[in-house]
């Protein structure tokens, strides 16, 4: 998982976590991502992981890394 960051359109210059991908088909609704990074992830009405924040700030990097490691379905990763 890289630490490359890019400013997003309209948010010029603000460091963000690299784009996060959630595979809804792989998600087993275990909620580990919500526990690791509650500001970034939540579960929808079906229990499937969703992003609360499409552009989480840099300060969430560690939490998102932990969420990716904790996911028992390996359903979250950074976009290349």
């Amino acid at each position, binding site marked *: 998982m890289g630490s490359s960051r890019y400013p997003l359109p309209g948010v010029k210059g603000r460091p963000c976590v690299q784009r996060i991908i959630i595979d809804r088909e792989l998600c087993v609704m*275990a909620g580990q991502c919500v526990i690791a990074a509650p500001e970034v992830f*939540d579960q929808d009405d*079906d229990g499937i992981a969703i992003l609360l924040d499409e552009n989480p700030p840099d300060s969430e990097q560690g939490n998102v890394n932990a969420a990716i490691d904790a996911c028992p379905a390996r359903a979250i990763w950074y976009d290349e």
Partner: protein
Amino acid sequence: MSASQETFDGRDLPVRLTIEREQNDHISPSERLREARESGEWREFEFFDPMVGKSGAQSARAVTRYADAREVLSQPGLVIGGLADAAEQQGESIAGQPGFLVFLEGEEHRRVKAVLSRHFGVKRVQGMRPEIERIADKLLDDLPADGATSADLYSAFFLPLPTLVVCYLMGVPYEDAHDLEYWSGLQTDITAPTEEVQAGAVALREYTAALVSRVKANPGGDLMSALVHDYIDTLSDEEVVGVAMNIFAAALDTTSRFGTLSTLTLLRNPEQLAYVREQGGLSEPDMDELLRFLSPATSTMQRYVTEDFTVGQNSMKKGERFMVSLLAANWDPEFIGDNPGLDLRRGRKSHLAFSYGTHTCAGQHLARLELSIALTKLFQRFPDLRFDGDYHDLGWMDNDLIYGIKSLPVAWGEG
């Protein structure tokens, strides 16, 4: 007792190497498990699966390293073992019940799991907090009733707690809970005769089917009603029964036994208990360290491989069977470092106590919530609580897939 065999009531029992613990502390992985883990090999071990009742030794390869466990449990095409064995037996096994999650795979598993998981999500279970607090308070109020200064915390607190929570969720009268726990408990007890395990499965099914019928006719506001009515298009009638049976079977013995063991562990570890008191209780991350250390579901169910795969120095071929020792993996130095002992200060680790992959425990958030509340209140209410028994004489459940003890004698005050 030879290394490969022991008897119980005259019946040969294969050595249950994937659930073995050291006899001096009753917690840590046995020397045989540690050696297997150090070797890195996936060695063949014998086991007995009470839910499918096949007599005589079966064997499976035991995965003991943390990294291997995660790789293996992520492989596509794993199938729970034992279904063919169960089908061969005379009598009904819980393995044949539609909607009983642990025995399902693929799309069927996903469809049913989605129903359960919806109600047990991280934030969703927080809604159960007020009721859990009420139940814990009431049970703790009763402990010192009539001037008592001692109790068995298993029967007086940790068994009734999740039982009352399940009764609340499922709209079941408390008087019925003893039977529910008994029938469920048989399913994980290696020493229970197969006919009794099957009779328990049938009784649990019949009870649950009757409950589902009543709820269909008279819906309420509880979880059981939601299961029956909201999922009428997604689940068959039999599957609703199976999902409800799964809740009974998975929410009682697991939580009660783990809560009891956690309390014993803290009472015997003054340094960790002092930390708990400094913190004012136990948070949900604290429960994770206790989960890692105790690994109450000591190993996974047996699984078959349907596609060859290789992980590092080991391979498995289609048709081979394996189990993962969650206990050995949670204590793997490559995961946890040189000190695998209880350390509540170490910060949250991605342990495997709830397993990994598609069958990861769906009820885990409720379990953590219940017990962080229960343990916090217990230690607040009884600041001088002490263990008052013989550590080796607690009825350690060495023959059960869900580890626990039969009693936890404690005292407080002048007791």
